[in-house]
């Protein structure tokens, strides 16, 4: 997707949530590649995102039940935001995971820059963005263990994340890998992918939320529920 108008149309579709999950994941990937070098499309995304939020004002407001309000306020009163908790307690535990994943991202970046700099500028940019993301103090991290090693993954509370691996075997012929985020026992589809000569630098944006883990299955194509047991899985930690 290189045409400027196509990018603008993609932004309009993206902010109005009128893409299916696979289209959305693809669009996010394309925007991630295009926006850093395009101030006008970046500004358009900001404007149309704001506008899409304001479309919400068109329906009549609707009174919420006292029960619902009480439920929300009770839940809030009994807990603290993760940022407030994490700011006081989590850094030592987070450090090891961040370091491991930054090292993994750096290794992939190194491979790209050293050996294929002519062809892979976009991938190098994606790897740099990946390093920024995994270094974000708000990120949760997971190491997904499987039969042929492990993959590293980081995700922000916004749902933006990245999956990183080196030396990942190709999925069986006619199949792809699919990444999932887990909310306890529920799996949320993220996107499908295939390694490029064993390398994976996969930016993604999932639905914002609190996730407890991540998994990768081998599927025939994009599916909304896993059809097989995960080949790789791991728990998310701060």
């Amino acid at each position, binding site marked *: 997707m290189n045409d400027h*108008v196509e990018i*603008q*149309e*993609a*932004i*309009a*579709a993206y*902010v*109005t*949530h*009128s*893409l*299916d999950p696979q*289209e959305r994941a693809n669009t996010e990937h394309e925007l991630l590649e295009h926006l850093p070098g395009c101030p006008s499309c970046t500004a358009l995304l*900001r*404007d*149309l*995102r*704001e*506008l*899409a*939020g*304001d*479309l*919400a*004002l*068109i*329906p*009549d*407001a*609707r*009174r*919420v*039940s006292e029960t*619902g*309000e009480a*439920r*929300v*306020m009770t*839940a*809030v*009163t009994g*807990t*603290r*935001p*993760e*940022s*407030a908790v994490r700011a006081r307690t989590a850094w030592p535990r987070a450090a090891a995971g961040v370091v491991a994943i930054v090292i993994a991202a750096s290794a992939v970046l190194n491979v790209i820059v050293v050996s294929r700099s002519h062809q892979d500028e976009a991938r190098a940019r994606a790897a740099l963005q990946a390093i920024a993301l995994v270094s974000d103090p*708000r990120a949760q991290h997971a190491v997904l263990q499987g039969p042929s090693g492990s993959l590293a993954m980081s995700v*922000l*509370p*916004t749902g933006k994340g990245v999956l990183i691996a080196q030396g990942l075997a190709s999925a069986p012929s006619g199949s792809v890998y699919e990444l999932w985020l887990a909310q306890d026992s529920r799996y949320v589809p993220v996107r499908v992918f295939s390694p490029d000569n064993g390398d994976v630098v996969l930016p993604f944006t999932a*639905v*914002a*939320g*609190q996730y407890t883990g991540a998994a990768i299955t081998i599927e025939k194509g994009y599916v909304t529920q896993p059809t097989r047991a995960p080949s790789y899985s791991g728990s998310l930690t701060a």
Partner: protein
Amino acid sequence: MGRIAEGSSDAFRDLYSRYASTAAGLAHRVIGDPVLAEEVVQDVFMSVWRSASAYDAARGSVRSWLLTQVHHRAVDVIRREDAERRRSLRQPEPVPSDPTDEVVEDEWLRARRADMRLALRTISDDQRQVLQLAYFDGLTQTQVSERLGIPLGTVKSRTLAAMLKLREALSGAER
């Protein structure tokens, strides 16, 4: 949002008081089911409380950030629940018969709502129809194309044109 991220339940209550009814109106418009709509609103507000630090002021207003999450969650629900089936089974709404009758909104929000409705009149019927199906009925652009029997490219271009026209119409009414 900074106070909420630091754990201020008072600040959170203010946010809830200001936007919960708008969020409920949107979720109900998309989902068409008052119970599911209220669940969406509760889920989003609880998510906002847990991850308030995710808000980035450089990317837009709190209002837009919050309502975008409500819309995204509502669309997810309706796609999961099968919109047509749910609408066909929809029961009469219990309360309130006039959804605005007990909603108290601040003046700014009421004025912004009026601006948006006026701006909506500036786009063509074709553009409004596409936006209606995609944003308020939760259809994907491919589904809109099939529903209207028009090429997908036309849906894409009408959606962009509608958004640009709305932006232009609102530029004179920025609040």
